[in-house]
């Protein structure tokens, strides 16, 4: 369906509009955003099911919870930073504790938000959402997966956090591949080292694997579109096969995918793990290339960590 470069938020917008056609229980709320979170198409096609909440994310989450307990399937949409930190309490209590069938769908997850800078970047959202009991956390890696994850979230009964990026990124998966919540995707087989990645870092992980492959290294790439619940079996199998792991995510190394990987392998099959992610810092403005370089989220950074784990193996 999508190929080349495409932003995940645009695919989300397409998916929502298509969902609107087939499921009249789907409603969309947003906090003063429309085009930035790509809900414009839905809002124009289904104005009666679109709710502009204004600049009040906390109220949006509570309202969505109320609509969900009444049987609707609300998508509460805003930027990742605002949804998960500003509205954390209503997500925790009104959505999570009530197990309200709300889909918290966000854009601007990660470092690539352009000029907006630190207040609009989100490195903590995966960690914050993983901490909400029974919250499902979906972090697709490209536009094709973002589209399918949106449909999967709507079909799933329970609270879901969906994280999309702002900028166009390479489409690396096929639209025809099935998407199942809780299932990892092995995108490349290998036995020397396993790169476990999520979100926009998966295309980067694939590039790194390709480069390392040319040097004769056998690199496995496992993409985790569901960070919670994590596909533990796929992870443990990779640990057994490769004996070392590098995790990669456009998120803090504290509390995100790398932490989730460590939590599993440390008790089930301990192997050396290095994490690629944002260190304990706030972000800043900049073009994606500049920012990815500064925060060590490039192919070369993954390759460096691969060499490091291989040395420690």
């Amino acid at each position, binding site marked *: 369906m999508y190929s080349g470069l495409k932003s995940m938020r645009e695919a989300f917008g397409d998916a929502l509009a298509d969902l609107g056609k087939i499921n009249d229980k789907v409603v969309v709320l947003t906090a003063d955003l429309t085009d930035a979170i790509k809900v414009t198409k839905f809002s124009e096609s289904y104005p009666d099911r679109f709710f502009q909440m204004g600049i009040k994310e906390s*109220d949006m989450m509570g309202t969505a919870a*109320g*609509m969900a307990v009444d049987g609707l399937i609300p998508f509460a949409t805003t930027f990742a930073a605002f949804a998960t930190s500003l509205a954390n309490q*209503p997500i925790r*209590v009104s959505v999570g504790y009530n197990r*309200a069938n709300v889909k918290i769908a966000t854009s601007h997850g990660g470092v690539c938000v352009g000029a907006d800078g630190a207040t609009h970047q989100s490195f903590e959202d995966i960690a914050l959402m993983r901490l909400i009991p029974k919250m499902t956390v979906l972090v697709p890696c490209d536009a094709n997966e973002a589209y399918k994850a949106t449909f999967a979230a709507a079909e799933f009964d329970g609270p879901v956090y969906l994280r999309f990026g702002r900028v166009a990124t390479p489409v690396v998966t096929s639209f025809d591949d099935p998407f199942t919540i809780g299932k990892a995707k092995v995108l490349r087989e290998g036995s020397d080292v396993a790169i476990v990645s999520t979100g926009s870092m998966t295309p980067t992980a694939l590039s790194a694997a390709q480069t390392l492959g040319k040097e004769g290294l056998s690199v496995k790439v496992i993409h985790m579109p569901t960070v919670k619940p994590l596909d533990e079996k796929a992870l443990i199998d990779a640990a057994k096969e490769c004996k070392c792991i590098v995790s990669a995510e456009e998120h803090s190394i504290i509390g995100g995918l790398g932490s989730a990987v460590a939590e599993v392998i440390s008790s089930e099959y301990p192997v050396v793990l290095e994490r690629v992610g944002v260190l304990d810092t706030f972000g800043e403005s900049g073009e994606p290339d500049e920012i990815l370089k500064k925060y060590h989220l490039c192919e070369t950074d993954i390759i460096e960590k691969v060499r490091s784990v291989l040395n420690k193996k």
Partner: protein
Amino acid sequence: MTIKELELKANSIRKAIVNMIYNAKGGHLGTSLSEVDILTYLFFSCMNIDPESPKKEERDRFILSKGHGSEGLYCTLQARGYFPEEWIDHYMDHSNPLTIHPTNKVPGIEVCTGALGHGLSIAAGIALSAKLNEKNYKCFALTGDGELQEGSNWEAAMFASQKKLDNFVWIIDYNKLQLFKSVEDTVSLEPIRGKLESFGFDVHEVDGNDMTGIHNTFSSIDFTCGKPHAVIAHTTKGKGISYAENVAAWHHKIPNTQEWEQAIKELNNARV
């Protein structure tokens, strides 16, 4: 039910609350007693509900945003037949569904509450959902007064007004006390009526411990006026027990045996 019958019912619920908190050695006495008359009126006279079928689609919804007033709600729901009396007798036992802050595991309770400032948003979502689905049910939400210091309430208020949710009733249990002292001396809500009117609400004021007044107020609400409704219920914290009335310490103080005996005696002798 007649006004007299409702008053008698509220009195018996008050006694149940006192017994429940005394036996469990935990709870929020003052706030549960201030809200009893409103809850009795809603559940025994006003709302379209069926305890035999607590999830009936057309039911009116009630959200206790001030979740710490749970004992008042539990005793009202039990009196209305939602669950057995043993649940009240075993309040706060680990295996009992009745916990200090209410959860949706209890029949008659729509959502879990307890963290203040979230119930109004949920209630507005439910009211909006009713409008969207072209259903006639109403959503009543009861907040505290100190609770309104949370800004999220005012977000919900703006939204309810924006969407003209005339099936939404926000009741404020205005007992004038919060945890340590008066609301006025903490962070004042005044002028509360002006605030609510300026937010676009159809505002009513009533003595929230007077059943006749409560009946007249709720009966006068026009659910087709295109505005959300607010009922400022002026109440007395600890209502019905002389030593607890208007005393902040009774927010969650537990009566000793002598105090319990006196409370029951006063409620037995209350002129209803």
